């Protein structure tokens, strides 16, 4: 078996974070940014098509089969159970035997009970794509994996290493150990953590980063989504002098107070996070649009590649809306 790490021409980016922070948005944006740089990009969702499919505007219908989303990006969804069946099919020659195995109730019970079997197979398939094992040479310049909410993602990423210890010998052990090594190598992998500028997501992001460090997995970027640009000094003054004597003033005052309150929480939370982790946070803007779709993802992609600064977010919002 050829040495995988040094020959991996492809770079894997994994995106995770608390539920609801905008992982799919960031994953889609990273994929589009890589596409704009001229790479052939594979974006992957674990499990059935969900957020990424909606944002990129295409829906894959078959496990593991990428569909062209334009801009150099292709989207696929990976189902662990299907990946396992595929793996067995590839390593065993006779179809009849393979079918008998895969449809057997014993096998099915085993797949459901076996420690992280589905996860290993799914992540192993990602590695195979990186190395171009199916076609003989790497097809993709970059792979972006939306690994889902942090609890599950950490399990997914930690599984090969855990499994290598559980499966004493045999093919699965060798596979697991190989995938674990490749995941831990910063030359081939980066794990990005996404948060929102709110207490719980920031707290969870801190815990995820610390856990990734414990697991020896290579950290990528720490991204805080939906940040507000700073208010000018006069804004607090305005709040002090608005007389709330009529509904319009009350509404404006309330809106202003809320925004200043959220800005304060945002700055405090981000400062605390940066200090705790010794990392710099990247901010993505809050975008307001009737519908959040491809155009908004492209805008986020431009911010991620620093083609745009955060403070212009609101100005662009008006154009979009």
């Amino acid at each position: 078996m050829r040495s995988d790490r040094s020959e991996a021409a492809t770079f894997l980016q994994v995106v995770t974070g608390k539920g609801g922070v905008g992982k799919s948005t960031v994953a889609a944006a990273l994929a589009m940014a890589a596409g704009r740089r001229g790479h052939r990009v594979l974006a992957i969702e674990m499990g059935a098509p969900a957020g990424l499919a909606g944002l990129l505007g295409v829906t894959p219908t078959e496990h593991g089969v990428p569909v062209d989303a334009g801009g150099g990006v292709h989207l696929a969804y990976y189902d662990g159970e299907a990946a396992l069946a595929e793996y067995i099919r590839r390593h065993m020659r006779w179809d009849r035997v393979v079918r008998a195995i895969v449809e057997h109730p014993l096998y099915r019970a085993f797949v459901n009970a076996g420690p992280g079997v589905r996860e290993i197979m799914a992540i192993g398939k990602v590695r195979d794509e990186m190395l171009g094992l199916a076609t003989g040479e790497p097809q993709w310049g970059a792979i972006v994996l939306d690994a889902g909410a942090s609890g599950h993602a950490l399990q997914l990423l930690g599984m090969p290493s855990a499994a290598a210890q559980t499966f004493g010998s045999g093919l699965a052990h060798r596979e697991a150990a190989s995938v674990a090594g490749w995941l831990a190598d910063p030359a081939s992998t980066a794990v990005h953590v996404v948060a929102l500028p709110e207490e719980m997501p920031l707290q969870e992001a801190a815990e995820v980063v610390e856990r990734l460090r414990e697991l020896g997995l290579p950290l990528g970027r720490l991204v805080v989504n939906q940040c507000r640009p700073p208010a000018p000094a006069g804004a607090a003054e305005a709040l002090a002098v608005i007389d709330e004597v009529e509904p319009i003033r009350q509404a404006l005052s309330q809106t202003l107070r809320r925004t200043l309150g959220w800005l304060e929480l945002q700055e405090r939370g981000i400062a605390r996070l940066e200090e705790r982790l010794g990392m710099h946070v990247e901010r993505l803007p809050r975008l307001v649009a009737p519908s959040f779709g491809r155009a908004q993802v492209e805008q986020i992609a431009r911010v991620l590649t620093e083609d745009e600064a955060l403070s212009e977010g609101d100005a662009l919002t008006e154009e979009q809306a």
Partner: protein
Amino acid sequence: MTSMFEIVTRHRAVVCVGTGGVGKTTVAAALGLAGALAGRRTMVLTIDPARQLARALGLSSLERGGEAVPDEALRSAGLSVRGSLHAGMLDQKGAWDAFIVRHAPSAEVRDTLLSNPVYQQVSTSFAGSFEYMAIEELVRLDESGEYDLIVIDTPPAGAAVDFLRAPDRIEHLVDPAVMSVLSKPVRAWGGAWGAVSAVVHRLQGTFGTRALREISAFFVALDAIFGDVAARSERARAMLRSDQTAFVLVAGPTERVLADGDQLAATMRELGVPLRATVINRVHPLFRQDFTVEDVEPVIASLASRGVDEPALTWLRRLWVTALRTAEAERNRLAPFAAAMPADSAWVEVPELDHDAHSLDDLVTLARLLGALG
């Protein structure tokens, strides 16, 4: 048309479902407090509580077994609670271990299972595991007879629908036809069916003999408690379907959350389980108000004359426009969603507050906004 007050006073169980990040845990805590204020002995079981929320409830942390919110904490918040409020946290691993301890027929089976590496993986990783444990805890709390109302927060699964399907999934794992083979030691597997020995052979080659032995030991031990799992699953299904159990969907006005909410509501319709209430949390304060972009100009002018500088005024104008557009987008998104909900269910919109709820006062405010106070 139901009200949230009726929901917390007329049911034995209130299950808060919905996707992650919408404030489900806080809503569950507020509903629990409302139940206690209404004179009921209430238990709130949470999944992912903020440290501050635990502190707000007067607890140093949320214990697995559940702890009473101290009277002093309630009194100092000016609340006279006629019932009582207990709060607990669902810890998946701990709950599974406790389940095994309760149902294992012997110390040997118990210890074999608890120390088995396959069990340790499986109990936290197979689909529906966490959800099943949440339901099992609900059933246990109900059977204890210690509570009039149990409010349960569900795991923040992307597909909240897993919660309803969990009892069936557990049973699939212990399918009797498979169990009868798997629960025999590995060497006996080959004898049963012709094809099985080929399967065992491949599995051994792929996964290693040691792993296979551990898996076999897992099923042998699991078989010993199988009867109980089936019985508990039945009890769980009955509880989910009872008219003493009310499902409350917690959602938000953002696209993704509403799409998830739509899916959950559709699944519940399919399964014939009614949604009693929908809470749209964190709506924009301008959501139900009728202002225009121009309305703000006289105010801007007056602020200018009060000495507020130009950059601040420009920023303020832009803030107003963004706020109106956000509110409008939310309104347009929510109208079809509301129309799809059961006609007799409660519909509550809770405005975005200027901070996360982190005190009993905040929970009372939230309970009031939910319409859960009498």
